[in-house]
């Protein structure tokens, strides 16, 4: 933990921004470069920065959940997204889509199980990295 006023003040501002940005990257990964992995990395970096500025205890308090439970939850979400293929009789992981259309009838938004999978990846990455950060920083 670094005892620096500048870092603390900056982190307060940056934390929210970085988490927002990570969610934006997660969402953007739907059709363009980005995705759960990169998004998760950014989110994890945000929390790691917080741990650096305020200490691991503060980060744990902020996170509420144990990072390893987060990891498990993400994994579960990823597996679950594959199970949506079941009712149609398709193999595991076959994508399912709900397509929203705008007034002209053009495709406006396609929501599908890959998004769910990506959110799962996001959570796994955040959980895994924060578990590492926690283990390494608690040692000192």
């Amino acid at each position, binding site marked *: 933990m670094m005892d620096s006023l500048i870092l603390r003040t900056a982190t307060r501002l940056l934390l929210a921004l970085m988490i927002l940005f990570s969610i934006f990257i997660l969402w953007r990964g739907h059709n*363009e*470069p980005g995705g759960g*992995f990169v998004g998760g990395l950014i989110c994890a970096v945000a929390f790691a920065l917080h741990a650096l500025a305020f200490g691991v205890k503060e980060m744990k308090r902020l996170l509420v959940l144990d990072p390893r439970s987060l990891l498990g939850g993400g994994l579960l979400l990823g597996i679950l997204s594959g199970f949506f293929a079941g009712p149609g009789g398709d193999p595991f992981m076959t994508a399912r889509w709900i397509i929203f259309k705008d007034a002209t009838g053009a495709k406006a938004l396609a929501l599908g199980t890959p998004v769910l999978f990506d959110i799962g990846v996001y959570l796994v990455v955040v959980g895994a990295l924060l578990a*590492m950060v926690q*283990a*390494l920083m608690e040692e000192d």
Partner: protein
Amino acid sequence: METIMAFAVGGMVAGAVYLFLSRQLLRVLFGVILLSNAVNVAILLVGRLTPGQAPLIGQGQEVLGQGLANPLPQALILTAIVIGFGLLSFVLALVYRGYQELGTLDSSQMRTAEPEDAV
């Protein structure tokens, strides 16, 4: 270009093997990093080097168009990098712990699991 890259891969592997031969564990680990990077470059190389655009399927299209890079090696390398990162960070932590517990990084002195007297 392929030839130059192939020689670069060869050079990296040679460097990695040289580092493996060290008794100092940290050097061995650096060798592993070098080797896994050499393999990643090799994957890129066998997918053929083409000066192409990013392989994204445009709106309204069903398949990849012409003049785009081969996406498969990139996917393989990304997977390999992620796996390699995970393995390596674990092994680094393990070696650090080993240094704390055993007090040495010299592999010829690490005989706790295989004591010389018990053969």
